[in-house]
Structure formats: C-alpha cells, structure tokens
C-alpha cells in the first residue's frame, strides 16, 4: 500500500456509552463469551467497520476473536451494516489487530458525518481565534502605550532609582503578558528544543526572551552596562507577542476560506432518505440506507445515495459534481448519484452504493487527499525549512558579534536589538505555507469545475503539458455509434431490413451492432430469434432467419462470398469520407442494403480543441478506427496530427515516442481501454460521462464528458502553479531581504536599523499575505482561459 487515504484514517469516538445508530438495538449485557469482564472500570464504546465479512458465519468468528482480547467486555456485530460495537477498555489498534488475525480487515468507524466534523472544526477554529484575539488584546494593551510613550514623551532608559523601580514594575507586567499571552510560544519552543528541533516558536521565544532579559538586566544591575546602553525593550516584547497573535488569528480566519470547496462538496450530502419499506415511505438517516433499498425522490429533492432508476422519468441537475450545466434526462435503468438534484419528475431508484462508497463520498475523499498533498515545487521549501531556524539563530549570533566588534557605542544595545530583530523577522511559516495553501484552493477550484486532481504532482505536471493525445471514440466523439443512413437495394422495405439486421446483430457485442439494435428499438422494431449465428472475425456475422441466410459485414466479407456490391461501392466510399462506417447486408447471397453507422462528435469538442490549441498545446489524435474515418473526424475537429488503426499497446508507444521528442505528454482516454497509455503519459486524464467514472483510474478525472474539462484542468493547474511561485518568491524574498536588514546591513550606508516591533509586524503579516494570495485563486475562472 502506497497511499493511505482517508479511509485508513478515521476519528475515534471514545466517549463512554454513546448511542450509535448502527448499534441500535444491540443488547450489551450478558455476553457469556467475554473472557475478561472488568466491570469496575469505565467501559468505552468502540465502533469498527469490518471489511471482508461475506457470510453470516463470519459474525461469530469476528465476535469470538474480539471477545478473547483482554479487556473486551462485549463485542456485537451488525452484519447488515458490517459494523461491530465493542465495549471495553482496549485501544482500537488492538481490536483491529485481533480482527486482522481472524482474517478480516477493520477500521475505526467515523461515527460523525463529514458535516459534523466540519462544524466541529469551525467551532474549534472560532474558539482558537477568540483566544488569540484575547491574547493579542492583552499584549497590545501594555505594548501600545509603552511604544507611544517611547516614541513621544520619554526615553526608555534607566538612569535614576525611581526609573529603575518604574521599569521594574513594567518588566513584571511584561512578564505577565509573556506568561498569559505568549505562553504557547515558550512551551512550544522548549518542547522543540528538547526534541533537538526548532520552529517558529523558537524564534519568537528567543527574540522576545532576549529583549526582556536584557531589559531586566538593565533594570536590575544597570552598572554592568555603559550609560548609553541602559535602554529597556519591554514594549518590543509586548508588541511582538501581540502582533504575532494577531497575525495567527487572522491566518485562522483566512485559512477557513481555503477549504470552502470541500465544505461545499460535503454540503451536497443529504441527511435523510425516503425509503420504501413494507410498502410504506419512511424517512431515515442516510447512514441507515442499505444496498438494494428502494428510495423515492420527489422533484426538487436531493438524491441521497447512488442508485439505478426503477420507476419514473425526470431530469437531474448534476452540475454540482460534473460542472455540466444542462440537466440530464433519467429514466428506468439510468444511474443517479448522491448529491445531485432531481428537477422535474418523481422517481424511485434502487440503492447501489451507500455510505462511504457513493461517488460523492469518494470524490470528497479524493479532493481532501489531493488538497493535503504537495507538488514537487514545494520540496525546495521543505528542504530549506529543515535548516531555516537554526541558521537564523546563527545569523542572530553573528549579527550580535558584528555589532559588538565593529558597531558604534553602545555596542551591547545595538547587538541585542539586531539579534532580537533577526530572530523575530525571519518567518519560516510563510515559506512553509506557500505551497499547501495554493494547492488547497487550486484543487478545490478544479473540483468545482468537475475536474478531480489526484495529487499535487499531477497538478504541477498538468501545468506544463505541451502535447495532448486524444483518443477518438468516447473522447472526441460521443462514443455511442448511431445509425445514420439505411439504403435499400432491392424490393425489401426499410423496416424489413432493420428487423433482419437487428435480429442478426442482437447476438453481437460489437459497438456497431449495438447501434443497429438500438436504432431498430427506437423505431419500435423488436429483433427476432435467429439460428446458426456465427461471428466471422474482423468481417461480420452470419445467421439464418425463417430459412433466409443473412450476412452482415464489411466489403471484405461480401467479396469473399462473391456478393456483388457494385451498386453501393461509391456510396460506401462517400460514407467513409464523412466519418461514417458503411456495412453491407445481404439476404440469400444477394445485396439487400447498406447501413451507415457513425459516432457523432460531441457538440463542444471542436471549440474545446481550439481552446487547447490556442493555449499552445499540440494535439494528436489516436484511434483504433480505420484511416478514412480517422481522417474525416480529425478534419472536422481541426486536428492535423492523427494516427489510425492503433492498437492499445501502440498508444503507449506513441506516448513514449512523443516524450522522446521532449514533449510533456497528456493522454486523454476513457480510462479503461487506454490504461497503458494513460499510465505512460506524464499526466493521464480519464474522461467520464456523467459521474459514472472510475475516479481512481487516472491522474486527473474529468467528471463531465466535455473536452473543455481538459482546458479547465490545465488552466487551473497553471493558475495554481503561478500562485505557488508568487508565494514562494514572496516568502523567499521577504526572508532573504528582511533578515539582513534586521541584522543591520543598511546601517553603515543609511544609518537604518529596524525596530524589533516593525519586525514583529512584518513577520506576523508575511504568512497572512501568503494565505491571502492563495485565497485570490478562489476567484479564478477557468472558462476565461
């Protein structure tokens, strides 16, 4: 396993005796098999989801395995829900191990919905924000008056005993602020220090600590220092703590906005579903919907789980998932997906995927995972941040030494100011935030447009694509061939030809055959039963119907059987040039008709391909179809480079060939037949129709069939990468320029030395700037690019 997804990562609810829907009705008392019943101890309820339990006998096996674990009081499995509730004081991991030993997989059940989790996160964030604002207010309450005093009325120096006493009191007040408002910095710094690591807290703690300690030395033993150096910096300590808390608070707010896309997706999940049980409609929580349940949805309601329409006819708005604005018609046998909205009619559908298996749940999972992954461009920042803080500490020491050795009097005061400022101005956070914040917003933005990006690497590579390979069938074209022309040669009627043709083709699984059967059905013609059905590889089919020998296939088949097709040869060539596939139909070795089948081009393919070409992307079309059809399609959609009659494995070869030319190759296909080429390409795009796509099959999944999704995906990737670069550059320049200025390199030339308070403000707002810049991406419109 190389990818731990959110399925492996679950919240553990371990509040005692919490009620749980899935465990309703399970009796807990009197479990005789419990080998270790420690009734005196507080019992904890554990909920686990079991994977691999396929028969009812698994239940006793799993329960037995759990009951033998020391500390387990009782274990009861709900086979229908594949969940088990365990009472006892045992860590979840041990329970999971016991189940694994018994031969099953288990994971902790997320007992709360995604929505509840988001609410809880918002609540926690709000609380943290309040705490930070309070800390900020207290610190600034002391810092601001002190700073105003220092700037306007008085010198903050210690010369008399009264001044000593006053400043001593201020020093104690500052200590109070440090403990009350800045405690988290000092504890964090100390803990990191013990771990031989250093972080943001280390810098803040060292900076403010140095300023305070020096000031206290000035107050306590002023004689140690020359008169000019008896300056106190309590205001700097208080101001820095205040400003950094303010920066953190604003960052919490801004960060909340970056996860709006995922919140929107989570908001698409219904809370209840109306299922039909015992001929009655009952509203139940969606967690309780079982596979094969019949669910009724009225107009205007949201579809609760994935399913297949059993009854009724309606139009469903799938735009929230696919980005496709037009409602999609649904009737018996069509798939519906959770999160979409039923617009017009009332339908009943059978649940086929529930809970965490629905397409929506998988999309949420994938987006969440991708939002947390890092593109390669972020690795540089990671490498820097590992050394960043200790390097800053060293620079602070060197800066202090330089001032002591070469600086003007009072050297010690300048040394302290410069060291403090260096420590405070450096901001590893901005550097660290630069990439993840943009990825978070960019991936979310793409999801809104119906583009699912698997990870940060795919996001980065997609922005660099130079050549895009498009599969023809199902990608440029609809992928469902339709009968376009039926020309009858002799006395037979069109209906008679279609009846016979659909009868012989009903047994074939070829897409062209299916087109003929579908077309006949649309005209109310039902296929008849044929006998002696034979498929002639690469040529066609043969069968008998009412003592008539039917032959259906290509030119080669007709020629081999000696059937004269001269009457339609020219017509056939004309069809081929129009990207239609001609097929001959003979009855009793006499040509009866020619039927042309074509796979229509999607209505926006031409425009989308133009958009890609306009962005400088070279387009290559690959198809397994014949040359004439390929040429016709390519010409229609404005593609000059194409390859026809390509086998799937050759598609991968073509990808490698283009890569050999130095191209960054994107491959777009339906995700199944094109798997080798998709895997070979720098970025594989799986194109789906509606939401019926395997979202794990490619680097980037386009939820709607339109090729505009490709251009959207590339546009969002480019915008995100630009945003990351801006962030990284900003953070890098800020630190590279800020640290030397703080150390005092400008002093010899301009007499400029930064105040630690300014440094504190700059540092607090540098990370806020990064988050704000990332948030700008939220307003990006892919369609405009």
């Amino acid at each position, binding site marked *: 396993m190389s990818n*731990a997804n959110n399925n492996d990562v679950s919240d*553990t609810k*371990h509040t005692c005796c919490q009620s749980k829907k899935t465990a309703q009705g399970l009796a807990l008392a009197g479990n005789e098999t419990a080998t270790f019943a420690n009734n005196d101890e507080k019992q904890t309820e554990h909920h686990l989801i079991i994977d691999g339990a396929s028969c009812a006998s698994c239940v006793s096996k799993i329960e037995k395995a759990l009951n033998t674990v020391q500390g387990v009081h009782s274990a009861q499995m709900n086979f229908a829900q594949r969940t088990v509730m365990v009472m006892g004081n045992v860590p979840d991991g041990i329970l999971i191990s016991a189940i694994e030993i018994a031969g099953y997989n288990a994971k902790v059940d997320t007992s709360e919905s995604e929505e509840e989790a988001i609410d809880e996160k918002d609540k926690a964030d709000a609380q943290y924000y309040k705490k930070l604002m309070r800390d900020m207010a207290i610190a600034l309450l002391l810092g601001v008056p002190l700073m105003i005093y220092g700037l306007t009325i008085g010198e903050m120096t210690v010369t008399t005993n009264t001044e000593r006493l006053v400043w001593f009191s201020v020093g104690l007040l500052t200590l109070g602020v440090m403990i009350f408002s800045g405690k988290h910095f000092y504890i964090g710094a100390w803990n990191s220090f013990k771990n031989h690591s250093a972080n943001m807290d280390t810098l803040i703690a060292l900076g403010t600590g140095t300023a305070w300690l020096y000031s206290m030395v000035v107050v306590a033993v002023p004689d140690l220092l020359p008169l000019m150096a008896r300056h106190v910096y309590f205001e700097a300590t208080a101001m820095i703590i205040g400003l950094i808390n303010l920066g953190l608070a604003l960052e919490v707010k801004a960060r909340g906005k970056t996860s709006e896309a995922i919140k929107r997706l989570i908001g698409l999940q219904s809370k209840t579903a109306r299922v039909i049980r015992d001929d009655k409609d009952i509203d139940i929580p969606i967690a309780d919907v079982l596979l094969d349940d019949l669910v009724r949805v009225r107009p205007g309601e949201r579809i609760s789980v994935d399913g297949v329409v059993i009854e009724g006819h309606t139009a469903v708005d799938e735009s929230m998932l696919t980005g496709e604005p037009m409602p999609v018609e649904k009737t018996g046998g069509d798939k519906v997906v959770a999160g979409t909205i039923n617009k017009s009619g009332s339908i009943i559908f059978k649940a086929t995927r529930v809970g965490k298996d629905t397409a929506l749940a998988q999309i949420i999972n994938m987006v969440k995972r991708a939002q*947390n992954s890092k593109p390669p461009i972020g690795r540089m920042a990671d490498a820097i*941040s590992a050394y960043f803080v200790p390097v800053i500490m060293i620079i602070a020491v060197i800066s*202090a*030494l330089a001032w002591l050795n070469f600086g003007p009097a009072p050297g010690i005061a300048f040394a302290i100011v410069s060291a403090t400022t260096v420590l405070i101005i450096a901001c590893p956070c901005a550097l660290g935030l630069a990439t993840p914040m943009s990825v978070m917003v960019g991936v979310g933005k793409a999801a809104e447009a119906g583009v699912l990006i698997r990870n940060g690497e795919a996001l980065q590579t997609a922005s660099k694509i130079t050549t895009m390979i498009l599969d023809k069938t199902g990608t440029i074209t609809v992928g469902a061939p339709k009968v376009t022309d039926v020309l009858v040669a002799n006395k037979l009627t069109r209906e008679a030809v279609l009846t016979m043709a659909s009868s012989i083709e009903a047994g074939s699984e070829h897409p062209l055959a299916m087109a003929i059967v579908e077309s006949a059905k649309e005209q109310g013609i039902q296929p008849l039963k044929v006998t002696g059905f034979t498929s002639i590889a690469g040529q066609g089919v043969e069968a008998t119907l009412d003592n008539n020998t039917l032959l259906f296939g290509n030119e080669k088949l007709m020629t081999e059987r000696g059937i004269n097709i001269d009457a339609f040869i020219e017509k056939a060539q004309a069809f081929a040039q129009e990207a239609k596939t001609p097929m001959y139909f003979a009855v009793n070795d006499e040509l009866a008709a020619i039927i042309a089948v074509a796979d229509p081009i999607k209505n926006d393919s031409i425009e989308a391909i133009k958009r890609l070409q306009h962005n400088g992307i070279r387009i290559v079309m690959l198809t397994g179809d014949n040359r004439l059809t390929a040429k016709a399609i390519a010409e229609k959609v404005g593609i000059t480079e194409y390859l026809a009659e390509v086998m799937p494995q050759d598609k991968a070869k073509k990808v490698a060939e283009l890569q050999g030319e130095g191209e960054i190759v994107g491959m777009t296909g339906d995700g199944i037949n094109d798997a080798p080429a998709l895997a070979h390409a720098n970025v594989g795009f799986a194109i789906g129709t509606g939401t019926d796509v395997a979202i794990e099959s490619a680097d980037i999944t386009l939820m709607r069939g339109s090729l505009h999704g490709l251009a959207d995906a590339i546009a969002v990737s480019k915008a995100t990468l630009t945003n990351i670069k801006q962030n990284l550059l900003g953070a890098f320049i800020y630190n590279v320029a800020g640290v030397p200025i703080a150390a005092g390199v400008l002093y010899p030339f301009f007499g400029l030395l930064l105040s630690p308070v300014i440094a504190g403000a700059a540092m607090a707002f540098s990370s806020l700037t990064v988050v704000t810049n990332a948030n700008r991406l939220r307003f990006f419109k892919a369609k405009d690019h």
Partner: protein
Amino acid sequence: MLWVNLAGVALIAVIVWWFWIYKSVGVAMQEGVIEVVVKDGVYHPSKIKIPANKGTTITFERKDPSSCAETLVIPDLEINATLPLNKKVSVKIPASVPGRYDFHCQMKMYIGELIVE
C-alpha cells in the same frame, strides 16, 4: 572582547551540534498500538521506532489548537491525514523498508521521525 567573541563562536557550535549533529539514541522499538499526542508545538513522542516490513497503526491525538498542527504528512510513504482537535485519528503505516521517515505538519514546524528497523 575576545571572550565575548569566543562565547559567540561557542554558541554557534552548540546550535550546530544540538540541532544538526546530535542524533538521539535509545528510542525503544514499539509494536502494536502507538499513540502520539500533538501538543504544545511538538509530537509526543517525536521519534518512533517500528519494525520493518510490518504494517503498524499509529494513533494521533491533536490537543494543540494551532491550525499548523492540523495536517500530518509522511511524504516518503505518501501518507497525509487531517487531525481534528481533541480526536484520535488512526493512521495505518504500511509495511515499509528499513529507513528513517520524517513526519511533520504542512509547514514542517512540528517534526517527528519514524525509524523503521
């Protein structure tokens, strides 16, 4: 002044040694369930020794409200997880080849190490 400079140089040496050269020893191999608490700017424990070629589950509990601590990343194992406040989250570590794998928050301010032996 000489002593001050020497003290400064010594301080730099201490920083280099403490943060880069020093390698902690004596982390005991842990099996079964490992619980890591994210609190006050660090992971407790921050160095975890686990057996090689064997899947392990580590439970993380974030008690630190700082939003930095919310994301856990183990880049080399392609693992990332969101740690809600005051909730236990089980992270499955796949059977891995021996080596040292960093785990950290998104900004690398919270750092821990997974030692697979």
